[in-house]
């Protein structure tokens, strides 16, 4: 019995490592194509429709979720801060949370749900109907034709969506805190400026680049490697979202740790009180 368990663990480990190796090769081939003729018209014409799909069409959902998260933060923190008589400092905690963590993570998760699954479904269907093989047979590398534009669209546009999410989060928080809960506007913004600096806004935007890359690569990879039939595509879509979500959370942790080290090394600890 223990031998069988060890065998099973070994088999899972080998399978996991093999899949990870395949994913790294896939990512490597994508990066390689990024260096070749990226500004040629025949490549740009593939990128623009993807940018529309990933960017423009995601704006409403990212904006709405961003705004409501800012509003919820204001509602939840107001009671606690008021108990301490510190409600005029609400701006720093709400805006810091929005630009550093909630804005980029939420935009990433929304993109993973809206685009990651759709990428997998589209490429998975192309895979099971032999359209990807057809591309290869016609001498067009499917990585260049299908993956690079989708990957680039995610990398370039998630930071912009994050800015939208941040902006609406900040406005949502301000609206609830100042306009409905009666926090005075001037100290609200004063403490916001004290608690949040450019580096912290940039930190959120920079990590959105990596979240976008992870969503694009995972979505495309799952589509390229999905199993046969409708059930294969369906399973790949679910895996795509779950894996992207986990990737975002894990990357976020490492970024938070790294940024904290750098920031305290450069500027020391910056208190919000």
């Amino acid at each position, binding site marked *: 019995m223990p031998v069988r368990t060890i065998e099973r663990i070994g088999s899972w480990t080998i399978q996991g490592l093999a899949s990870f190796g395949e994913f790294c090769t896939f990512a490597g081939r994508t990066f390689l194509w990024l260096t070749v003729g990226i500004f040629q018209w*025949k490549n740009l014409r593939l990128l623009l429709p993807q940018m529309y799909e990933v960017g423009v069409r995601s704006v409403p959902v990212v904006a709405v979720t961003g705004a409501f998260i800012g509003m919820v933060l204001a509602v939840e923190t107001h009671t606690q801060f008021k108990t301490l008589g510190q409600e005029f400092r609400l701006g720093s905690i709400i805006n810091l949370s929005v630009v550093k963590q909630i804005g980029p993570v939420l935009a990433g998760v929304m993109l993973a749900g809206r685009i990651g699954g759709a990428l997998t479904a589209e490429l998975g*269907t*192309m895979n099971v*109907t*032999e*359209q990807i*093989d*057809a591309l*290869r*047979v*016609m*001498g*067009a*590398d499917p990585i260049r034709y299908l993956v690079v534009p989708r990957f680039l669209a995610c990398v370039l546009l998630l930071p912009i969506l994050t800015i939208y999410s941040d902006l609406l989060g900040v406005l949502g928080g301000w609206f609830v805190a100042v306009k409905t809960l009666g926090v005075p506007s001037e100290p609200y913004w004063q403490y916001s400026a004290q608690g949040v600096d450019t580096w912290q806004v940039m930190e959120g935007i920079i990590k959105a680049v990596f979240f976008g890359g992870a969503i694009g690569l995972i979505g495309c990879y799952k589509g390229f490697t999905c199993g046969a039939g409708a059930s294969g595509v369906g399973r790949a879509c679910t895996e795509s979202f779950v894996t992207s979500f986990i990737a975002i959370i894990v990357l976020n942790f490492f970024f938070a740790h790294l940024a904290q080290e750098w920031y305290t090394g450069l500027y020391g600890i910056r208190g919000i009180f």
Partner: protein
Amino acid sequence: MLFQSLNHSIPSMSFIELKHLYKSFGPLKVLRDLSLSIEKGSSLVVIGASGSGKSVLLKHIVGLLRPDKGEVWFDGARIDQLPERQLMPTRQRFGFLFQMGALFDSLTVDENVAFPLVEHTKKPPEEIARIVAEKLKMVGLPEVGKTMPAELSGGQRKRVALARAIALEPQVIMYDEPTTGLDPVRADVINELIIKLKHELNVTSFVVTHDMQSAFKIADRIVMIHEGRIRADGTPDEIRNSKDEIVRKFVLGEADEEELRALNA
């Protein structure tokens, strides 16, 4: 030349040569020491039961699958070990008709047929439009250019896919079950089209099918694959008059006694 030895010597000047191919998917052994050569300008039809490895064989020739062991040669060069990028120029010399057409859903018929021309040539748009119209006319569908693939019937989709396959004027056209899923009349249109393209474009045709009527009509030579090996290799007449029980039953479409017994059990 029926029932050739598997290790028979392959003529060195063949256009396509497969040497001692082995391919497995997990425990399933699909190709087992399969050797085959195809002469330039000939029409070879590969027949065999579903799951016998016909499509797998076809995909080895264009590098969509790599053999576990063995060699694939095309026009004097070994291609089975070439990396994907180096394989691209070779692939442009092939046209491939997939079983379900594999037209790109998001592109119109015109854009589908133009795809290889846009990708691999620097022809101006007017020239590409002229070639697309010419190829669509060749397959008997001059009017469908602006429609989407989803709006076409199964037979029309295959003909459009064929127009796309011949857009770059390939030297070899590979057909993966070209008549599957079509009614007999539409299937015959595809057969006639394959013959017409062979004569008009002087291409080498490699057809995989289990439609015997189609095989006898198209082929100069028929090869039967059974359990990953070549079971029979000869002219259509030789295959039709084969004394081999397995070949005979396949040609006549007779079920195996063992399978019938299992059905009645």
